[in-house]
Every structure is written in structure tokens, then in C-alpha cells.
């Protein structure tokens, strides 16, 4: 198994008094693509928010290259190399496509990704770079969201339900772009509700159920029955 880039140990997360994650353990190796599955409310998005600092957690529960980063501010975490494509895209509506992409580069990390590289990956965005981001189709908006996250030149890219609300043909295009992103060794975590997609694009899978990791294993070795049981709890 590859060297641990991110180590999550006994992670608990709360919204006020309500506990959402219960003793989650998770390991992410350098260059891996990991899939996270789970039904609505299973805690997948909260887990992603914990990794990016949007949900405050215990300092030692998340380690990046051995450094405790749990509870760090989101801005510090992106500078350390973790970027997220949020659920629902959440582009800046007052900005053009290019301005949205430039916001992604605010952390100013060095690396391959810049506007030209993003436009190479998603050529349609170059054509529409001066248009308001809200005027784009759902798939194009998702491309902007992915491009914006890549602009920070992250070591780890977290993708939270990037297929949500998109047509199958658009989802295929988006997932077809993943190999270009991971070609240089970028580590990717993909949260999905679609079992086929998650299994196909990842090397390992975690399945969340009611805030706990119910199943973990190599994507190619997990059977449909095992995943269904962990996904639905039946």
C-alpha cells in the first residue's frame, strides 16, 4: 500500500449538539483515487467538510503527511494542498467564468495548473470565459467548479457529488476528465451516490452509513452485495 498522505483517526463531527460522524477512520495514499459511497445523510459531505476545515473537528483526528490539521481554518488547509469541488458547484454568481477560476488561484500554490491548463482540459470554458458563471449549463458550471479547485494546485482534490443533477452524457464527460487530472499523481477523493461510477473511477472504496464507515476495501474486490448491504444497511 502507498505511503499515507492523509490519516483520519477516530474522527467525530458535530452540528451543534447533534453528532454526525462517529469514530471515522480513513486513510489516503499518495496518488490514490478513493471513492466514498453512501446514501443521503450518511455523513459523506460532513466528512469532506471536516477534511477542508469547514466543520471544526479535533486537531489530532486528521493528519496530513503526519501534521495534525484537524480544525485548521479552511484557508490554511487549502494552502497545505487540499482543495474541494463542493456539492452543488457553488460558483460565485457575481463573477464571470474566468473570475471564478482566478479565485481558485488565490492560495497561490505552485504547480502545473493555471488558466491555460484549465482551458486545455475544458476548452468550452475558454470560449465562455467572460460570460457570467450563472449563464452556463450545469455541466459547464461543474467544469468551472473543478477548474477552480485545480487552480490552487492541490495535492489532494476532493470532489463532492460532482454528478449531482447532471445528465448521464455530461457525467460521462466530467468523469472522462479525471484521468487527465490524476495523470501527474494528484490524489483524488470522489464522493458519489452512484455505485457504478464510484467503483469504476476509484482504486479503493469507503461506504458510509449513518455517520460511520460501514465498509472499506479495494473497488475491484468488493461485491455488489457487500456494497448494497453497507450502503442501505439491509
Amino acid at each position, binding site marked *: 500500500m502507498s505511503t499515507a498522505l492523509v490519516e483520519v483517526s477516530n474522527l467525530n463531527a458535530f452540528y451543534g449538539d447533534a453528532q454526525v460522524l462517529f469514530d471515522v477512520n480513513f486513510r489516503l495514499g499518495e496518488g490514490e483515487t478513493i471513492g466514498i459511497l453512501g446514501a443521503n445523510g450518511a455523513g459523506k459531505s460532513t466528512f469532506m467538510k471536516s477534511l477542508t476545515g469547514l466543520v471544526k473537528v479535533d486537531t489530532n483526528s486528521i493528519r496530513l503527511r503526519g501534521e495534525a490539521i484537524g480544525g485548521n481554518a479552511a484557508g490554511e488547509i487549502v494552502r497545505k494542498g487540499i482543495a474541494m469541488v463542493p456539492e452543488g458547484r*457553488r460558483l460565485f454568481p457575481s463573477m464571470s467564468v474566468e473570475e471564478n477560476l482566478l479565485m481558485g488561484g488565490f492560495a497561490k500554490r505552485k504547480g502545473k495548473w493555471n488558466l491555460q491548463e484549465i482551458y486545455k482540459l475544458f476548452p468550452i470554458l475558454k470560449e465562455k470565459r467572460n460570460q457570467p*458563471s450563472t449563464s452556463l449549463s450545469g455541466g459547464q458550471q461543474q467544469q468551472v467548479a473543478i477548474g477552480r479547485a485545480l487552480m490552487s494546485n492541490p495535492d489532494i482534490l476532493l470532489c463532492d457529488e460532482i454528478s449531482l443533477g447532471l445528465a448521464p452524457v455530461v457525467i460521462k464527460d466530467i468523469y472522462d476528465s479525471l484521468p487527465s487530472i490524476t495523470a501527474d499523481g494528484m490524489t483524488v477523493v470522489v464522493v458519489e451516490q452512484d455505485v457504478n461510477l464510484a467503483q469504476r473511477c476509484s482504486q479503493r472504496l469507503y461506504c458510509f452509513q449513518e455517520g460511520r464507515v460501514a465498509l472499506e476495501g479495494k473497488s475491484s474486490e468488493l461485491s455488489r452485495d457487500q456494497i448494497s448491504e453497507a450502503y442501505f444497511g439491509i
Partner: protein
Amino acid sequence: MIETVIHGILLGGLYSLFALGLSLMFGVMRLTNIAHGDQIVISGFMGIAIAAAVNINPFLLILLLVPCALVSGYAFQYFVLNRTIGKDPLPSLVITFGLSIIAQNLLQEIFSANPRALDTGGLNTMGLNLGGDTVVGVLPLIILVCAIACTFGLQWMFAHTALGRSFRAVSDEKDIAELMGLNSARVYSMATAIAFSLVALAGLFQSMRTTVSPTDGPNLLLFAFESVIIGGMGSFWGTFLGAMTLGVAQQVGFHFDPGWGIWFGHLVFILILAFRPSGLFPKTKG
């Protein structure tokens, strides 16, 4: 009547300086600063006090007071107002309302209740003949030019600079802006710093153009608030044009009767609020 409109536009220049800071703070943070008018008055009194102590050119006071306002605005937002920002607007309203009361009482204690003005060496009575019987004041003209420059500068900064993008980002999606590496507390503080510097400018011009007294704050806040609402939230040129509308409405009222000016402005504000609640020049969404 043309002269009335011209004077209304000149008065609108001063009102737009009152309103720009309020518009900026509301646009970026959805925060309404109830002490905004009192801060204008404080700046006026600070200018008057410094000029009395060291006999300085009133325009040099701008170079002195605007940087002070930048620093104090940043610190006030960072250490006080940032703690009140959230989904509930009440805490910031209560804090700034309390600040308004403190400011008025402190000013009365220090300067007494008498109105005062900043000595401009006669600039405030100088006129410029535009031909015929139409004469405009030089100082109001300077204030209008300054207001246009500030409005243009703010709008340009919002549209074309990284700081402007940061303001728009935290206003649009605060969480996501933080995911990009922005520190929203610092961005908010920058917005308030700029707003306070505009307030300092407005206060100095107000005390040059007319008199200021410790209890003027709420009225000035009302003019600023009306300008923002008339113009439509979210656009600095909208705020500028809203201030022009208010200034012209008041001058038209004054034209008919010296006692009608202020309430004529309020009447126009209420009519616009009733028939065009999003203002005359609302920001168009993309």
C-alpha cells in the same frame, strides 16, 4: 428650476459620499451600521478640533484623517463587528446602535451641543458663474467631483482588482471563499476600513459645507440610507444616482417652501419604496 436641479445634484454629491460606505458594508457583509451618521459627525468634529489646534489647511486634514479612518475601521471590524456577523442581523444592529448613542453623548460632553463648522478660508462661499444667473458653489462642485471619483474608484476596484473579487466572493459564498484561501474576517475588515475612510471624507466635507452638531448623526444616516435604497442595493453607481435623486428632491421641496425640502426627500423615498422596492437602479443578476 434648472438652478434648483443643479443645486440638487451638488447636494447629491455630498449625500453619495454619506451613502457609499453604507452601501459597501451592506453589499459585502449584509451589515447595517446604525452609527454611520455619527461617524460622519465624529470625523467633522475631529477635523474642526485639529484645525483649531494646529491651523491646518482643511484639505490637508483629508490626508491626516482618512488614513486614521482606514486603520480604525479595520480594527473596529476585526475586533468588534466580526464577532457579530452571522445569519442574525440583530447583534450588529444592537452594537452599532449602542455606539451611536455613546458617540452622540461623548460629542456633546466634549464639544457641547452647539453647531460648529470647519473654517475653509472662504471657500464655502465662493461661487462659479455658469452663465446667466446660474451660480454654483465651488466647494459643492469639488465635493461632487470627489463623489464621482470615489464612486468610479469603488466600482472599478470591485470589477477589476483581486480585492474587489475578494469582496464579491465573501458576499456571494463566504464558505466557498474561505475554501479558496480567503480569510473572510480580514476581507470584511478591509471593506469596513474603506467604508470608514469614505465616512471621514464625508464628515470633513459636511463640516466644510455647513455646520455639524453632535446630534446630527441619525439624520445623516437617514439620508445615506435613503440614497442606498432609492438607488438600489448592490451597485455603487446606483447609490450615487440614488443620492442625486434625493438631493434633487430636497432642493425641489426647498424651491417651493424652505420648510418642505427634507420631507419632500422623504416623500420621494417612500414613493420609490412603495412602487419600486428594489430601487431605481438595482444590480442586474448575471
